[in-house]
């Protein structure tokens, strides 16, 4: 096992360990806390639909990573929920575009819970019957999202932004695609992606690092390291279309306005992501001139928000909210980006926003769940937990201005959910 220790000036420290089989483990101790949070994850999400292992290329139905997540809770000796119920821990799992994670949080019996987590994620058990039954349950989940305007407005936008990148597909797939999932396919995907070399464990809270490492090392099943080549179809620079709409039962139009960023082969560095976050705040954060204008014109309300959406092969600036006139909001955002390009960024606002982001980066250490989630980002992107604090001190206005100039306000999508009738 290879062990590295990291600490920083705000008084936090963590260990990163790598087992011989490639499994990465991140642990941050919080001895003054009562609770702890642990997460066992794999770099396997909805976008991993075509892959190559040992020279063999496989294409799988959309939604299979999420399907597998549901199924993994069952084991031959009862489901994981039942086991966690005996200790009182809270347990859950989630699938995103690029990862699947299983987690628990507790204030007592941590090592028992860790044992349950390690064991069920490593013991897939499904039969033809249980797979068929799950198709019904997930079908209902998909239909629930069909009624969620917040979910639909986002995926409609992604479908209009990406031609081929699988990020355009709903994480749970469709009723049709999950119907194609069977027992063998699930095992194929499990054996490919649930290999320790593709996985990570993140723990934060009242735990002892050495005790955790010893327990994990003992219970990880031996395996051969596998190299997974993820095959991403070519993605054109331009968006598919600039406008998309749907009608649902909402009171006023909802919108999601996306600006497609230039494609980069690798996922973005911490510094690049900080620059994007700063930019978003400068363009439309609640202290920005644009935000003030949109509120005063009655075009947005407290639901307005923005995010930098990025991952393997995709990056976009997203602005979303409710508005009586989504097209006017989109135009104002474009205009503001162009104004900033010519007039430059306000220095005072830049330093205030940088201070604000610095405060948020310190705040994240308040909570064991947010620490564990940030350790997950470290595992996924091969970055350090303290990188953000470090770069926030050094990032300059010139670096942000340079990125600003590259934003293409012609390469955008506006997705709108209109009220019915």
């Amino acid at each position, binding site marked *: 096992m290879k062990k590295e220790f990291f600490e920083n000036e705000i008084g936090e420290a963590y260990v990163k360990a790598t087992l011989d089989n490639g499994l990465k483990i991140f642990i941050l101790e919080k001895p003054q806390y009562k609770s702890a949070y642990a997460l066992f994850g794999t770099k396997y999400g909805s976008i991993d639909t075509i892959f190559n292992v040992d020279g063999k290329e496989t294409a799988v139905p959309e939604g299979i990573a999420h399907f597998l997540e549901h199924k993994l809770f069952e084991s031959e000796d009862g489901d994981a929920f039942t086991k966690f119920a005996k200790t009182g821990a809270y347990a859950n799992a989630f699938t995103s575009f690029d990862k699947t994670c299983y987690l628990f949080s507790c204030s007592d019996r941590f090592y028992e819970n860790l044992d349950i987590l390690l064991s069920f994620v490593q013991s897939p058990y499904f039969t033809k019957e249980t797979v068929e039954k799950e198709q019904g349950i997930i079908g209902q989940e998909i239909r*629930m999202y069909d009624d969620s305007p917040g979910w639909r407005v986002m995926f409609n936008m992604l479908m209009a932004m990406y031609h081929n990148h699988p990020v355009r597909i709903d994480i749970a797939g469709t009723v049709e695609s999950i119907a194609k999932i069977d027992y063998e396919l699930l095992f194929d995907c499990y054996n490919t992606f649930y290999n320790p070399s593709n996985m990570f464990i993140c723990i934060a809270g009242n735990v002892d690092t050495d005790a955790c490492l010893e327990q994990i090392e003992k219970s990880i099943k031996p395996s051969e390291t596998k190299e997974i080549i993820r095959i991403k179809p070519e993605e054109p620079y331009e968006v598919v279309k600039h406008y998309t709409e749907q009608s649902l*039962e*909402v*009171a006023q139009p909802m919108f999601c306005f996306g600006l497609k960023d230039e494609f980069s082969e690798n996922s973005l560095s911490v510094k690049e992501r900080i620059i994007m976050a700063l930019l978003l705040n400068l363009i439309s*954060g609640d202290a920005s001139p644009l*935000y003030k204008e949109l509120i005063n014109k009655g075009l947005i*309300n407290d639901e307005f928000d923005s995010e930098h959406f990025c991952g393997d092969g995709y990056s976009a600036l997203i602005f979303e909210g409710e508005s009586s006139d989504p097209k006017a909001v989109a135009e104002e955002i474009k205009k503001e980006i162009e104004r900033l390009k010519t007039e430059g960024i306000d220095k005072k606002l830049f330093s*205030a926003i940088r201070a604000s982001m610095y405060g948020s980066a310190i705040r994240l250490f308040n909570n064991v769940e947010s620490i564990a989630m940030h350790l997950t980002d470290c595992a996924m992107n091969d970055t350090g937990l303290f990188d953000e604090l470090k770069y926030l001190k050094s990032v300059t206005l010139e670096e942000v201005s340079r990125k600003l100039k590259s934003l293409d306000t012609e390469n955008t999508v506006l997705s709108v959910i209109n009220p019915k009738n």
Partner: protein
Amino acid sequence: MSLEILKLSRGVEGLFIKNSRFNTTLISYNFYLPLQKDTVASNALLPFILTSCSKKYPDFSRLNYKLAKLYGARLNATAEKYGDYQLLKMTISVINDKFSFDEESLVKNASQLLLNLIFEPNLVDNSFTPEDLEREKRKAIEHIKGEISEKRVFAKKRLIEEMYKNEAYGLPKCGTIEDVQKITGESLYNTWKNMLESAFVRVQVVGKKVPEGFFEDIAERFSKIKRKNITKCTESAPTTPIKTPQNITDNMDVAQGKLCLGFSSEIYGNDDTSLAVMVMTDIFGGGPYSRLFSNVREKLSLCYYCSASAIRQKGLITVESGIETENCEKAEKEILNQLSIVKKGKFTDFEFESSIKSITDSLNSYNDSQNSIDLWYAIKINNKKLYSPEDIAKKISKITREDVINAAKGVKLHTVYKLLPKEASK
């Protein structure tokens, strides 16, 4: 750790919840007012307008800039129903001074800022300004309209409305659109004055230490106000049982239906009287070990979610589920069947013990979240003692199967609310 309540003025309490594990300090003002039809909307607008601008920061954008400079201090406002009361809550959270690169104290600055926002709004001639008022009214109206978008939340809101038609608890927490439209700059000024004069107030600090002179400053502000008719936060009225349960159905253009059931509970009230209801509701429809999850969802696949929760101070238990129309009747029958199993005491030892463990494990985590611990104490206003989460965990672990059965006995179906796709209307 025993906490000491400070009396700052008539009906104004200060509470320091010492907790050194966080990098931030949280300050919260909690104003309790009676929940009433003619004041609900206007009261609910106050925390939002007060935290959007002030005499010193008449422009909300300048205020947001100031917050950014305070290393991203977070200002938050909510207006919630708490039994038959309205709780107007305003908080500020800021990173501790040791992380700052500046000379000035961040915590002191942030606490002064919130104090000024509450006591010195942006007023002209005893009235809120038209710009501020119209902005906040528009946002409030859009928020009320927007409730229809999340069908799960909307369905529960409709259930409560139908259950408490002519009672205060049936009022929407921010009032109706018509109520909001009626608010004027002058009327809101009077609402603000009334809040300062008559609300029961709890001001709390969660963190390493209290900023210097903090509680003294608040006492000083209140000493200039004539405190009268102070809200007595006594018990809320329990839910009246109904002879024949009501059936209400709304139809909408949706893919999936929602089924909500409301029950009255004979046992109700605070932590001294109603903890058994908490355990009973959890066995019925709490975690994955519960009767509803393991039977209605997992075994019978009748819904994607199905869970129960209790509003103990009102003696109210609700069940929420997402269903396909064709399963609606079956699901309803099965939910009631699971309740009767709990009533008969036919739940397993596993279910009982899992529930006790899950509740106590979660209570023992409370001190690890600044917001949770603040809210915990903010609503501990009418118990015999100021119980900590650990105190309640101890009480919960003493609850017996008999207590649970006894609590379930007095649970009666009151209203069945369905939100169904249009083509399914009968």
